[in-house]
């Protein structure tokens, strides 16, 4: 009988200890989360279709290529369609299981770096075009010893842009979440 009671007491203590520790972990894990209303399927459906955004950002990348060429001389740009990637829309700004798509367009690149001397002009040219598409610089920025990195965000729909170089120069853009069927790059 004593053993049984002791066992029960032990189990109760274990459960209480578990509960207290769990509560601490939960508060630590979730307590710092920012409170903001989640977007709904209706919010997403009100956005432009994904293919419209793909067209729009293909045009933007074309203008950025032209702007860089104009700023520092023509580059031998080429595109890699296999680098395109596709996602569903659960980016935690939405209620669960909304139906939408996010596309990272095929990366554009040229096989040489941007020099430290060229980078300020490239950066200005890129930001000028990005600004016309609602992008603002943010995130990491690198400008040192032949290594450059620029990130920019489009706040309306969560678009994201990155350009950087080491031996080669690569740029990419993601659309953020939009409704409709994607156009696949082959």
């Amino acid at each position, binding site marked *: 009988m004593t053993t049984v009671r002791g066992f029960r007491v032990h189990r109760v203590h274990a459960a209480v200890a578990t509960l207290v520790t769990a509560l601490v972990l939960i508060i630590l894990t979730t307590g710092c989360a920012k409170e903001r209303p989640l977007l709904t399927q209706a919010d997403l459906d009100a956005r432009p279709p994904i293919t419209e955004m793909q067209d729009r950002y293909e045009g933007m990348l074309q203008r950025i290529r032209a702007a860089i060429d104009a700023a520092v001389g023509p580059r031998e740009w080429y595109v890699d369609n296999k680098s395109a990637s596709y996602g569903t829309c659960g980016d935690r700004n939405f209620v669960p299981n909304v139906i939408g798509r996010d596309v990272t367009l095929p990366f554009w690149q040229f096989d040489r770096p941007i020099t430290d001397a060229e980078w300020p002009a490239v950066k200005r040219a890129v930001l000028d075009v990005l600004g016309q598409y609602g992008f603002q610089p943010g995130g*990491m920025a690198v400008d040192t010893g032949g290594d450059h990195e620029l990130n920019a965000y489009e706040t309306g729909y969560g678009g994201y842009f*990155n350009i950087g170089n*080491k031996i080669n120069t690569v740029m990419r853009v993601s659309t953020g979440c939009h409704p409709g069927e994607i156009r696949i790059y082959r």
Partner: protein
Amino acid sequence: MARLADVERWDTGQLEAVFGRLGSARDRLVDLDGKLAGCAPPEGWVAPSAEAARAAHGGVAERLRRVVAGVTACRPVLAHTVDEIEAVKRELQTARTNAAAAGFEIDADSTISDPRTVTLLPEQVEQYRAGRTQQMQTLRTQLDGLLARADAADAALADILTRAAAGQIDDGASTNLASAADHVLGGAVVPDPPPAEAGPNAARAWWAGLSDTQREAMILRSPWMIGNRDGIPSTVRDEANRAQLPDQLATLDSDLAAAKARLAQLLAAHPATSTEPPSSADLAEVARLKDRIGDLQTRHEATVAIQSTIALPDRQLLLLDVGAPGGHAPHAAVAVGNVDTAKHVAVFTPGLTTTVAGDLGDYTKDMKGVRDVATAELKKVGRGGEEVATVAWLGYDAPQLDSTLFDPDRSVASADPAKAGGADLARFYDGIAASRPGDPPHVTALGHSYGSTTTGYALQQTSVPVDRAVFFGSPGLGTDSLGQLHVAPGHVEVLEARRDVVADIGRFGEDPNHLPGVRNLSSEATRLPDGTVLAASTGHSEYLAPGTTSHHNLGLAVAGLEDKQVVGPNVGFGDYRREFPGWQPP
């Protein structure tokens, strides 16, 4: 005979794509069996038009059976052709390398020439010529043999495609579409797979020992036996798991409908106006049915989430186990990219409150983002040919904020869920290595929050070390010694964001960023002396936000570009408070 240059240009990737599309087409066709039977003219219909309708229906059914038989017959030949051409191309490359080393040249038509000039004594000339002639003949025989193999593979494929297109593949007088497919594979007797305990290497050896027809039969007849088997190639697992989804969804639909109908029947028998109280047996059944309906709905939602997530290009479904009512939570693992061919493979394990229904899409999208970074960074350093695949592994019962919170065995405060999940995750890592003998990828284990603890336990159990591990927001690795983790030395990395207190509590072992030998990566916002501006991820849940230092570091880890990573001390208030007298981990 095919020209050497042509064979070297043959793109087996295109054939593999056709192989996959034919498999999907066959599965869709076989799924039409029910509809085909359902639209047959009714038995009691007697009229001249009824005979015409039966004849038309029979004609359509016959044509469909021939198509199914044809598609089914083509796939093993396609698979064999891909394997054969790949082997021929590899051996041609070796022959070319050896020939070049010996001073011979081979042109596009496989003509061999000997441009080498040597200075010899007169008495050496004959012997030298004879030796060179012998070498050229050996090379000629080798090249002719390889080109003949390529021709034979090409001819076999052309033959089966021609016969299938003409409807000449015998369906064995089958009566439905499934049996038409089965007839074509009828001769395939498949040895049983080894037991799961035998491990991924045994599964790989078993699969490697099957003929193409046996493999096809296995995928068609028993996809559930191979879809989740670690050690089997990822493309096969993906195909086997996809093939099961429609049936699983249909079963869940049917079970849900039956449970709801029974519940409605019980409730109707006891309307609110009734003066007679329901029996205790009825009350118990109502309670059981409500639980069952909730459980089935959870599994249904998980299945729909899986379907939605894998509907995009470049996805592989590597784990499908939505479970059964009363059993474990639904499990799934989805890869972005091809794990069979990627040079770099990452496996990400998430933590507290993760569910397949609620999070698979989110985490797969996060893995797409990490893959984008890794791919872009490889291109920047001139290694754009190296493919990357990233896997969201939701293969364990992650702790939840529900009644299990009070269960010492399942609570977030307990290490037990991490230990149990760690065993399965270890097999998954080992399975990647086993499925690619001779061509091991660079594997990175990524673990967040409680998922990092699961990852820590997994890495203590793997048979094959992974190349790198990154723990972020980690409450502990289940060990205080990096020596316990089967990770390449010096490649255990930790990210700890500002105000992420979870990463400091050390609930499941010492705070990881204090472990001797760990490499601390930055997730800070600061301006470094060289002008680099770092962007913070703050708190427990922003490590995977694009453009942040932590995201950048994770992508570089996956690509194996550690020289480009930004390191940092990872020391904040949470670390300083450890110095307080009497401090103990929770």
